[in-house]
């Protein structure tokens, strides 16, 4: 379990993280989402015990990070920002070093090393110095290091940064697979990562927590939630009729694609009515969709407009 209680951090006079409250239970993957400079990395560093908080408290697996640092670190697997590792060491040498520091020995060390090497597909590069590896391999070495001791808590700062689409897919599958009995906190600025991996999202900007919800709940906050969009040729008259429907708020047309999006008034379902009008007017529809809501829309509104957040 990961707990942040009024966690704050100041640099000089600047409040970089402002009273962050967050809780990640076993079985959850929480995505810490925010624009660059929002305080994501600073928050994770405090939780991992690298940075001392200016105020508040962090607990890993029930252990206070400042008062019982050793127990907290034993329970934690941590991938720091940029996945740093010792460039001159071979991949195997580096993983063995981490295993030694973590006091894994004998059969358990062998089996855990084999397991992470296989999980992150590092077989081909074991003997190579890390500094000669591609960014994607280095990230995977960092992930391997973090899960080596099979920790109950994982904190991963941008775990898929620098991976190609296939590797991203594999890394996300790995994180989802690890999640069933673990508390996992990842930071990301990739919105696509959220529905793919996270069971919950914490949005932060300017050091403040602005939302803590499931991806579906966030999507419902989008103005696109429940909107109906379609592409059709010669839909002009139908568009006019749709905009007069009682449940419809506005109708927007994408200039380039000619795609029409119909926004409902809050809480109104308009799918059937829109479909009815299109059918009655015999409009030739090439594409038709009910929108779940758009995370990028919610994200932009949350992080750009302080008034909206309050």
């Amino acid at each position, binding site marked *: 379990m990961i707990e942040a209680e009024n966690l704050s951090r100041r640099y000089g006079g600047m409040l970089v993280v402002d009273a962050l409250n967050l809780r990640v239970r076993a079985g959850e993957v929480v995505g810490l989402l925010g624009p660059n400079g929002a305080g994501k990395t600073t928050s994770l560093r405090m939780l*991992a*015990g690298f940075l001392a908080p200016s105020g508040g408290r962090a607990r890993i697996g029930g252990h206070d990070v400042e008062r019982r640092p050793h127990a907290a670190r034993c329970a934690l697997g941590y991938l720091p920002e940029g996945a740093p590792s010792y460039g001159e060491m071979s991949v195997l040498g580096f993983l063995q070093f981490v295993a030694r520091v*973590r006091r894994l020995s004998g059969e358990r060390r062998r089996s855990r090393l084999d397991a992470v090497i296989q999980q992150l597909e590092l077989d081909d590069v074991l003997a190579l110095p890390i500094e000669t590896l591609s960014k994607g391999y280095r990230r995977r070495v960092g992930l391997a290091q973090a899960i080596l001791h099979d920790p109950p808590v994982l904190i991963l700062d941008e775990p898929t940064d620098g991976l190609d689409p296939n590797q991203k897919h594999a890394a996300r599958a790995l994180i989802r697979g690890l999640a069933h009995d673990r508390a996992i906190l990842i930071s990301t600025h990739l919105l696509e990562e959220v529905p793919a991996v996270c069971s919950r999202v914490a949005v932060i900007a300017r050091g403040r927590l602005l939302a803590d919800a499931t991806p579906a709940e966030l999507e419902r906050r989008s103005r696109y939630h429940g909107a109906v969009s379609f592409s059709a040729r010669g839909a002009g008259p139908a568009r006019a009729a749709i905009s007069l429907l009682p449940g419809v708020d506005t109708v927007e047309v994408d200039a380039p694609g000619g795609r029409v999006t119909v926004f409902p008034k809050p809480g109104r379902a308009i799918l059937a009515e829109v479909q009815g009008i299109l059918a009655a007017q015999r409009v030739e529809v090439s594409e038709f969709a009910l929108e779940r809501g758009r995370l990028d829309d919610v994200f932009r509104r949350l992080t750009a407009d302080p008034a909206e957040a309050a």
Partner: protein
Amino acid sequence: MSALLAVLRRELAAYLVTPVAYVFIVIFLALAGAFTFYLGDFYSRGQADLTPFFTYLPWLFLVLVPAVAMRLWAEERRSGTLELLLTLPIGRGAAMLGKFLAAWAFIALALALTFPLWLTVNYLGHPDNGAILAAYCGSLLMAGALLAIGTGLSAATRSQVVAFILTEMVGLGYLLAGHRLVQGLVQGWLPPGVADALAGFSFIDHYEAIARGVLNADDIAFFVLTIVCWLGAGVLLLELTETG
């Protein structure tokens, strides 16, 4: 303990995989030889001892030991591995000690490789081998003290060059503390007790006492305490400047 050993082992391996280690050893041995035979007039003195070698050794250490120490923490800071290391279950003190002991072992190796000088004096005459052994111990202790200064200061910066220069300056201060150059400067305006106390920090005085063949507990304790204090200062510096 096993975490400390893991750090020690990693650091020692890090020295030995880079060409820096071999460059260091070659330069150390070449300079040690040059100082002993040319500056120290090894042959024309007509005495079978290693006094010329041990006389110049502190100055050789002053130049080379900071070069061994400078990367220990500065490089971790620069490359971001500091964050990795300090979030592993190892105390800052243990990490500091592991790094220091690895570098010290490396310097001990370089020092041990001067054994042909010892063979030479034993071939030429009948030196006091007990005194030579004591002088080697003193050399190792003084190198350790310089190294502890460098290790501690390396924790303060991400620049190896800054770490190197700071260590040179502090090391020079320690070497010259009892010298008339420094004493002449400070005796005018410092109370006599303070000037004497300052002289008591002189590496050269403590080193020469040991190098004369007297393994005095005071002198050994002085170097050990210096090492402990500077490594402790390094741990504090790590905590004060923890922002990578």
